[in-house]
């Protein structure tokens, strides 16, 4: 592997990895609070990309297809899809909170499929172009050209994650979130409005996924109803690698998975068509040898 290829794959890995990290973070946060894998998370990411595209197309009429449009799309989509997350929690998860685990899981799956099915029905399964005009200016390292867009993408997702970490570790609501994740019953007795904290967690997790969706849509230039399926799976893998329930773990896991995938699929005997198999194999290996992930706590089931 030459140096150029190395740098190129490093850049690709970091970009894909920061998308994974953003989505894994939402998984992890929701899991931390309600101890449930939110199956709908990948679909929320997909919805975020679509809402972003819609906003972008409207705003683009006035401000053009440049940075301003993308930022508007990002912010509006994060807000709208964050609220969508709250709605999903309210109607699909809250009524089931005390139901047997199997029922909750199937309901979560149902919610995910409704989002996915709605997107399919509305778009007819077509690919939609996300035509941005962000320029190709950038810096050259050796022969590898790295655009400013790529740098901004990575920086923006790191900033979002850092903001989230600050929120969880420094604010009153963040403290409430941590309390609920440790003991929901005791938190309620201490006067924490558990329902509100859970709703807030869904809002933030969904907003992050939407942010990832808009960035990925703008970066790859295409949005599709099925884009959330594999993404949800990979974000889950990233969350497991980092240690599910841990905010820094999700970031670490996302970036590591991105790099692993970029380098793994450039190996001669792997090839890009085996990329997803490679990622899945990694997940299985982690579940066998280090199910707690790199930064996580015990995940063995307890009642």
């Amino acid at each position, binding site marked *: 592997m030459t140096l150029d290829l190395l740098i190129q794959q490093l850049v690709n890995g970091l970009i894909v990895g920061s998308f994974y990290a953003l989505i894994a973070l939402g998984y992890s946060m929701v899991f931390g609070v309600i101890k449930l*894998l939110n199956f709908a998370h990948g679909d929320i990411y997909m919805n975020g990309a679509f809402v972003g595209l819609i906003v972008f197309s409207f705003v683009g009429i006035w401000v053009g297809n440049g940075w301003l449009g993308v930022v508007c799309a990002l912010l509006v989509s994060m807000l709208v899809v964050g609220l969508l997350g709250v709605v999903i929690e309210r109607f699909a998860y809250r009524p089931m909170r005390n139901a047997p685990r*199997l029922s909750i*899981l199937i*309901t979560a799956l149902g919610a995910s*499929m409704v989002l996915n099915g709605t997107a399919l029905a509305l778009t007819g399964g077509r690919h939609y172009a996300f035509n941005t005009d962000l320029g190709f200016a950038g810096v050259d390292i050796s022969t590898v050209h790295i655009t400013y867009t790529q740098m901004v993408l990575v920086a923006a997702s790191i900033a979002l994650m850092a903001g989230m970490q600050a929120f969880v570790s420094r604010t009153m609501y963040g403290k409430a979130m941590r309390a609920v994740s440790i003991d929901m019953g005791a938190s309620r007795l201490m006067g924490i409005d558990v329902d509100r904290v859970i709703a807030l967690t869904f809002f933030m997790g969904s907003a992050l996924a939407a942010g990832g969706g808009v960035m990925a849509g703008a970066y790859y230039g295409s949005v599709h109803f099925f884009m959330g399926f*594999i993404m949800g799976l990979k974000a889950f893998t990233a969350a497991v690698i980092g240690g599910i329930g841990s905010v820094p773990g999700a970031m670490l896991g996302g970036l590591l998975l991105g790099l692993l995938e970029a380098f793994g699929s450039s190996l001669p005997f792997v090839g890009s068509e085996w990329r997803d*198999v490679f990622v899945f194999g990694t997940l299985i290996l982690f579940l066998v040898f280090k199910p707690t992930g790199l930064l996580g706590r015990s995940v063995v089931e307890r*009642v």
Partner: protein
Amino acid sequence: MTDEVRTMPATAQPRLMRWSVVLPGLAALACALVLPQFANAYVTEVATTALLYVVLCLGLNIVVGYAGLLDLGYAAFFAVGAYTSGILTAEFGFNFWLTIPVAMAAACVAGIIIGAPTLRLRSDYLAIVTLGFGEIVRIIARNLDITGGASGLIGIERPEIFGFKLMQVQHFYYAFLVLALLTAFVCLSVERSRMGRAWFYVRYDEDAAAGIGINRVTAKLQAYMMGAVIASVAGCLYAAKMTAISPESFTFNQSLLILLGVVLGGMGRIPGVVLGAVLVALLPEVLRGAGTYRPLVTAVALLAIMLFRPNGLWPDKRV
């Protein structure tokens, strides 16, 4: 917690013969036996599909209904069976009947690879890992040469029994009917066995089950593998019936339909599951004109059942 703390009935073993179940069951069986004599090819074809779903749903019911594990990649085991049988007959000239034990073994191996690491962990992990597994099996089938790639495997040999070659829709209808009855019989016996009671126990209260000496990981793995084996046998027969299989027959949507069948009728109870399976098989016929709205209808059905009638249309009285 309400559902979880309800006590198990004192006799986990219901009476073997209940006329309210046996009589309609016999009537349904009699109808099933004579159906191809009266129905046209289209109806027989749909009925064959329904029987295929009955087998698959009964198999998944062992995993979901009996042991309470969510398997979202059940079609993968169906694919393992279909491809094992297909490759062995089409490429290596095996006798169809000999491929069945090989397919069962292959499903067991796949079940252990996926189940052994994940079943020790929380049940959500199994759900999402099986989701991934379903997708991976499809990707592998699409990328390998031996599986025929994206266009699939063709020229699978039709099975022969005592010199009689299964050719027409009716023949496969009866073959699937036999398989469905066999599966139902296996489910019925396993449900009442020591292993089946262990599954129920693990499903209701894992800690209590562990407390009375049930190895819960082993119990879950047994359920998972038994489900896998049933799907693989269904896959063998499916491959023989179609003579051509492609990765697109084993998508996530397929797994979802099988799960819907189990949930729709009522998890854990054989008549409910059979009803669910038949309804699921009829779904594409009913929704023929719905086009891209079809997955949405499936999804809304699943969600509505879970929110408003979580025990299914024909629920298990014991829960």
